[in-house]
């Protein structure tokens, strides 16, 4: 597998360097550790630290910004950052009002963030934690805390960033963010594997005419393998699995994210988006906002996931808060200019 890298051992560091250089002045990179921090932090607010393994870009790195994370820390490819790195991000993000951690629910992340939280506590920084567990495929509802965090991270981070930005205290930020997590679900389907830089073998093998429903963002096996199907049939399955799990009912308001795993073309994402919106409409569900793109990837894996965030009036308020990050920003001109009455909203 050819990759545009220099040395597999420094891919993460060089990526961080490229990121801060490209956004010159906006973010700073800490010495020694793979942590980026906003150059200017609003005082008086709870800090938001997100992170996890590398290799899922733009997640987590590029969800830093106004109304998004204050600091991002990443470990090696597919490996949670060490506690010392998380602690450095925590210290950088703390403005005396504590720090919220938002990350995907994996053994490695849990262990490292928990240890970092203990270390922060010793240094007098309060922390709170929301683990994202949106992946419907990864465990049945009765074992929901066994579920992994995948593309739904985006929604939970967006709401957490808005809650911090709104000036809520740590407990309230946690409560609102947890609510976002409880209302977020994702189902994905993988078509072909990604590869880890420096490792020739892909993470898994998938026959030329087969797909895997529910495969995880690190190639973890999903709920079933089956023959390739038309996009509409696959999208229908994903939407229905989510709808049954939430459960979604007619009249509900949702945001929809059609997420590509890496090498899936925008053409395919938009074809899937088309069907997802059709299917939700058939279910009587109202779509408040929708986006398609690579939000949470697994290197050059091919496939797509669909995430829904079910909104109530409180979540909608935080979802609507203007925000800017390199990976996603609210509607810019459209909110200020010609289409202001339609700002980010499909109601």
């Amino acid at each position: 597998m050819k990759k545009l890298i220099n040395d597999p051992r420094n891919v993460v560091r060089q990526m961080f360097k490229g990121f801060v250089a490209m956004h010159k002045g906006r973010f700073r990179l800490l010495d020694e550790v793979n942590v980026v921090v906003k150059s200017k932090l609003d005082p008086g607010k709870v800090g938001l630290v997100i992170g996890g393994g590398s290799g899922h870009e733009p997640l987590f790195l590029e969800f830093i910004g106004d109304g998004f994370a204050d600091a991002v820390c990443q470990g090696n490819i597919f490996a949670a950052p060490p506690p010392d790195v998380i602690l450095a991000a925590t210290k950088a993000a703390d403005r005396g009002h504590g720090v919220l951690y938002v990350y995907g629910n994996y053994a490695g992340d849990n262990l490292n963030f928990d240890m970092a939280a203990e270390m922060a506590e010793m240094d007098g920084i309060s922390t709170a934690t929301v683990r994202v567990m949106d992946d419907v495929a990864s465990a049945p509802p009765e074992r929901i805390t066994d579920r992994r965090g995948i593309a739904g991270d985006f929604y939970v981070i967006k709401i957490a960033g808005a809650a911090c930005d709104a000036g809520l205290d740590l407990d309230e930020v946690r409560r609102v963010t947890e609510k976002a997590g409880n209302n977020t679900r994702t189902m994905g389907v993988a078509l072909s594997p990604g590869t880890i830089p420096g490792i020739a073998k892909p993470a898994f093998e998938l026959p030329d005419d087969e797909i895997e429903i529910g495969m995880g963002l690190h190639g973890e096996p999903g709920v079933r393998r089956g023959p390739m199907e038309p996009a509409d049939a696959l999208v229908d399955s994903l939407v229905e699995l989510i709808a049954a799990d939430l459960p979604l009912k007619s009249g509900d308001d949702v945001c929809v994210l059609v997420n590509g795993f890496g090498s899936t073309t925008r053409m395919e994402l938009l074809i899937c988006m088309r069907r997802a919106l059709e299917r939700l409409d058939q279910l009587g569900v109202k779509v408040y906002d929708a986006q398609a793109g690579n939000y949470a990837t697994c290197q050059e894996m091919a496939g797509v996931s669909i995430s829904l965030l079910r909104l109530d009036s409180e979540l909608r308020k935080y979802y609507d808060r203007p925000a800017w990050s390199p990976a996603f920003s609210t509607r810019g001109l459209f909110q200020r200019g010609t289409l202001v009455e339609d700002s980010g909203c499909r109601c």
Partner: protein
Amino acid sequence: MDSMSAAQAREMMIYVADVIVESKELLCEADRNIGDGDHGIGMAAGLERCRDELRAREFTDVYDVFFTSGRTMIRTMGGASGIIFGMLFHAGSRNMPSQSEIGVSEFSCMFEKALTEIQAKGHAEVGDKTVVDALHPMVVSLRHSSESALPFKEALRRAYLAAEEGKEASRHYVAKVGKAKALGERAVGFPDAGAVSLSVIAKAMSDWAEKNL
């Protein structure tokens, strides 16, 4: 010889690091079967850093050797294994009074504490398809060797055999923890990657003791 000096512990850990670095591909392969395929990368990188730290100076305190190893792994590795394998050496050596040498009993005690702390943080039991499947029998064996006053060499040989057996047993389990969790029955037949690492570490210790104790 019934004790291990700080210098010997340092040599042993450097040897363990060498073996893990060489086993990188094997450990990735094990993780590829039922995890995300990166276990060897993390372990090799972490133990390389350990080796650098250990080589950088002399040690007079045995616990300092293990503490330095464990703390370095925790600080640099990340991933589940950074904490789990870091604690393997860190949990039982942290806050211990300085010792120029230790016997099987202290050695056994160190790993017993590690098991306790790994289980406290990771919430895994034997049969959940984690490193605990191999560590638990290894700790039982070490305790027994200590009670039977077996020499270090023999204690480490038995510890390895117990770990290896535990690793093999992990093949039969359905994962309840870690990235293989979602696999269900499909994980059966493959050993847990962390258990493979532990068995490699235990073998390296035993091999080193065979030649040097």
